[in-house]
């Protein structure tokens, strides 16, 4: 395998071995602390334009599986790992990670002291750009420094056209900001008749479909870049039908209801933090992936109730509207990858829709 480098904005360079695509890419460098689930992670659209450092040291062990895609077309910019195995014969695997990355033009670099990088990043204050390159020379650093990362991530990954995922149950409209498949799988398991709409859909577009409920999906980037239109849509829809929002959707739901956001000094991606469910005062674990957080003090208590909170960093992890059956969580309630206990929220959503119908 070819010697390649991970270079960072701060001038540091780390030598390793390339795998996957031989492309030279730049992106925001973030770390993922999940114990397993590299395929779900690399295919999750929230990593659009990001280079992911994996804490899990051995990657590729189970190849690529048909049921572990969070999107079919991954848009991450790279994988940084300690050790990678090319294996494709393991049970359901049809494809090795290496082949998969080549097909999608995503470079990987192995043999990196990922623990060092994670320890280093945690001390950073703000995002750090990086590149996976063949030569770590001045030119490469110039290129990196000159790279301006897009703020139109949602446009680049979300569906431009509506499409259905038919079933026989509740009518659910999913607004796609960079939807992860885990959400669709959870709705499918509950027999929902899903219509996925582009994120630019208006309240009229949503309500025309006469849905039982609407779900705002996860997605990449900053919610602040998406404009007022989507917030208007949320405000109008939430007053009419049950609404459930996850990840980026949660951040938008918060904005639509007067809360403010802050950018975290270091993005957090992992599933080890205890999250308190306030109403029952118990603790759950869920996969989290966030660069922004709702500012607790900015929450208008006449409009929103805080429902979940991260016990480690104190961030708001869930909100609920006071007047409507509309609620949101910051963490990934679909549990793909990661703990499953938060999948209960999809049942809550179902029951909210049922109550609305019957009520």
């Amino acid at each position, binding site marked *: 395998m070819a010697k390649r480098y991970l270079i960072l904005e701060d001038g540091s360079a780390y030598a390793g071995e390339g795998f996957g695509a031989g492309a030279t890419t730049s992106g925001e460098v973030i770390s993922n602390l999940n114990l397993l689930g590299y395929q779900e992670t690399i295919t999750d659209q929230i990593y659009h334009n990001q280079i992911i450092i994996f*804490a899990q040291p051995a990657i590729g062990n189970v190849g690529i599986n048909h049921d572990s895609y969070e999107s079919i077309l991954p848009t991450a910019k790279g994988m940084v790992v300690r050790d990678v195995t090319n294996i494709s014969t393991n049970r359901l695997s049809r494809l090795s990670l290496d082949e998969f990355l080549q097909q999608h033009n995503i470079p990987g670099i192995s043999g990196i002291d990922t623990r060092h990088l994670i320890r280093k990043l945690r001390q950073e204050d703000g995002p750090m750009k990086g590149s996976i390159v063949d030569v770590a020379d001045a030119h490469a650093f110039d290129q990196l420094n000159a790279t301006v990362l897009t703020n139109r991530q949602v446009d680049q990954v979300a569906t431009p056209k509506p499409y259905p995922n038919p079933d026989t149950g509740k009518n659910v409209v999913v607004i796609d900001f960079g939807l992860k498949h885990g959400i669709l799988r959870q709705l499918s398991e509950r027999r929902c008749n899903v219509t996925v709409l582009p994120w630019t859909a208006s309240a009229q577009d949503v309500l025309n479909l006469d849905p039982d409920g609407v779900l705002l999906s996860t997605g990449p980037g900053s919610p602040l870049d998406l404009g007022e239109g989507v917030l208007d849509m949320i405000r109008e829809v939430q007053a009419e039908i049950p609404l459930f929002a996850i990840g980026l959707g949660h951040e938008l739901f918060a904005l639509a209801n007067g809360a403010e956001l802050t950018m975290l000094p270091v993005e957090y991606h992992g599933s080890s933090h205890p999250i308190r469910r306030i109403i029952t005062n118990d603790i759950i674990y869920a996969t989290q992936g966030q660069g922004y957080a709702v500012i607790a003090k900015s929450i208008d208590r006449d409009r929103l109730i805080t429902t979940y909170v991260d016990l480690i960093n104190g961030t708001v992890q869930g909100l609920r509207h006071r007047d409507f059956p509309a609620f949101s969580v910051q963490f990934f309630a679909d549990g793909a990858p990661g703990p499953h*206990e938060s999948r209960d929220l999809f049942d809550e959503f179902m029951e909210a829709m049922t109550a609305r119908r019957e009520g």
Partner: protein
Amino acid sequence: MPNLDNIQKVLIIGGGPTEIGHETELDSATVQIITSFKKHGVRTLVIDNNPFSVALEEIQPTNMYVQAVTTANVRHIIEKDQPDAILPTLGGLLGIRIAQELVENGDLANFNVRLLGMPTTTLQQINNPADLNATLKEIHEPVIEAQVVGTLDEARGLVEKIGFPLIVKPVAPRLDTNRTVCDNVDDMFNALTQGFQQSRFDQCTLERSVIGYKEIEMVAVRDVADTEVLVAGLENVDTIGIHSGDSILVTPPQTLNDREYQDLRDATFRIATELGIVGVLHLHFALNPANQHFYVTKIAPYFSRGVALAARTTGYPIALVNGALLLGQKLVDIKLPSQYVKQTVIMEPTIDHVSVRIPIWPFQEVPDADQHLNTVMKAVGSTVGVGRSVEEAMLKAVRSSQFSPRDVLPSVSNLTDGEMIRQLIHPLANRILVLIEALRRGYAPEELSELTKIDNYYFVKLRHLLTIEKEIQDNPLDVATLQRARYYGFGDGMIARIWQTDTATIRHLSAQAKITPTYKMIEPTAGEFPENLSGYYSTFEYENESQPLGDRTALVLGRGGNQLGPNSAAEYFTTEMLKQLKRAGYHTILMNTNPNAVGVAPEFTEKQYVDPIQLGDVLNVIQVEHPDIVIVPGNRHYLTRELGKLPINLHVLPPDQETGEPAPEMATIGVSLFVHKQQKIAVGVMDMIAPGINKSLAQVTAFRMPAELPKAKRVNLVEQAKEAVSARQVTGMIQVLFAPKSDDSQQLVVVGVRPTRLTEMAFLSKVTGVNWVRMLTRQHIGTLDEGELAKISIDLNSTRVALMNAAFPFRQLHVLNRPGTTDQEVGATIAFGSSEALTLTNLSDTSELDQIINRTI
């Protein structure tokens, strides 16, 4: 559930002697639980008769019941001392069984004693598969349907329905394990006949075989408020069919996808909730790799090897946390010592390294045992390797498990192809070496996976190691190759052997090329938080996290994985020595690869290195820490010799058992002296008992003190012993051996002088109340005060008699029970009493000895 206010006194049921199935990990957890209880103002009573118990050193004599761990004795203590609660989860299956009997016979209710760790209903289910299965079915957890049978006829009638292979398991067995896989009716009848005898209810269960499924273990903790944390998942490399204690174990699991892993996590939590576990829960699952279906195969709500490994490999302080949980604290409220980041207890551990545990078997010492690995556990110990890749962790574990003084792996290249295939299908103790050999001979990973049911992934990893080995062979003395070899876990000794040079050359090359180890902390947040924990392992990367502890540092090398012989005693020795070094103001560092060792618990040392105890790795640690003293165990001759060549302050402790004069053929009396400068303190005069017909010294495995001799005779022997010692230049803990002058003579003469054996040193400490390990340590580090020593007076004629008897693994290994030799010992039991109570009428009668030791007080 209990709360902190109304539990003031807890009785811990000890684990008894070390045996196959549990080593010193129970002792280690007990020490930590006692510490935790103490912090919460709870008084701890302990019943145990393990003379090598460190826990018994940690409590006041008045709280200590050195008695056989039996239901009758526990009941007696309950009656006498009226504890508020009993804790059975530190005593292995024995503790669970005793607690169950106390529930069944109403003692717990009558004496108003609470059960800690789980509700009594759960306790009863743990030993009753049918009940347990019913509960699990109720919460939709898949179980293998077990049918209870009491006769061969009943079993015959079920055969058609279940189908072969099937598994026979005794109901409420008196021992751990004993699942037998049967391929035909004859096998089944044999297994049933044996099983009925082992069952407390003369019953067995029959169930479908899940042989070939992956065996995955999960270790979790739960509090009274139903908050649950999954501490670790463990993957057995060998599939169901080989006992998990005999399988190579990898953590975190490497060949599961996230969904499978999370499904098992869900199941673990549902079961913990349903069973109302408070504290630790260790589960086993059989996972069908073809369709991802799984079954629950074992539920162990108590401390075990798996729990110890989970704690060691994540840095999550399971035992400390458990102590608080048992007293009713919630996970969110538990406060840990300051080196932990505040929320560590409630964060689900995530780790950025790989650990591999490899078992160690006793077949060298017990050659007549069936050496096939199957559903009955045979391993007596294990070693763990930690690394940043599976290759590195695996190779480190293998290097540690083979006990090669020069760090070279043995070869099995002399196997014929036929033998090799046979051993792939019916594995023996050299399992890992045979797997490697098959790859060496060109078998493809997929083929081997077919043959062995081991996941293809592991063969791909092993083959990668062979590729690197080939690179080493092809590039002698090449620096880039050396870098790569070390990166993947090759030891200096291995590389030196391949390059036909010596370790010094390898180290010189490495130093020149700056190929230096980087030590990484073993901590449960994968680098997310600045934990300050004490466990480290080496790898060859960018950042080193281990900073030297500074002045006055002692580096203690452990003995590695447990083997037969004086190992538990050595473990006791090392731990007591570490405590003494700490007391003497040393920063203590332990290097050890035994995940079950007491000393590796963070309580005993400031730092632990989990790395092979091989010359290269030891020198690497010395280079980082610059210790003032290095202490090497007496059984590591090559290491001692090589380290002795260097300008370091080297001590050999525990002392080498092999030094001194040629051993006499036999001895009947041993006089122990502590020799320091001009002083010779008489420590004890004991009977050296060789149970059985053969009376050779190696058969001396029981001891009685004081010896059954007239008082004057004892005094006389002590005088003779002192003379014998004076004639020789020896110091430390010395034993002078006596034997009758001739077969028909009563006169005892000196037949030999040797360092007191480790087992006997522990015995002497327990009997005299003076910790001789600490004395010996102080002698070595020069802090022994002669005046203080002079004040020690030992009553050599005490009327309180003590008896110690070695325990052997013969029954568990299914070989003929017999008097064993010292190098076959797995543990020991101790008893105190009046001279009448402990009188032996026939020294050759082993069952009489057993009866006396295990008598009801």
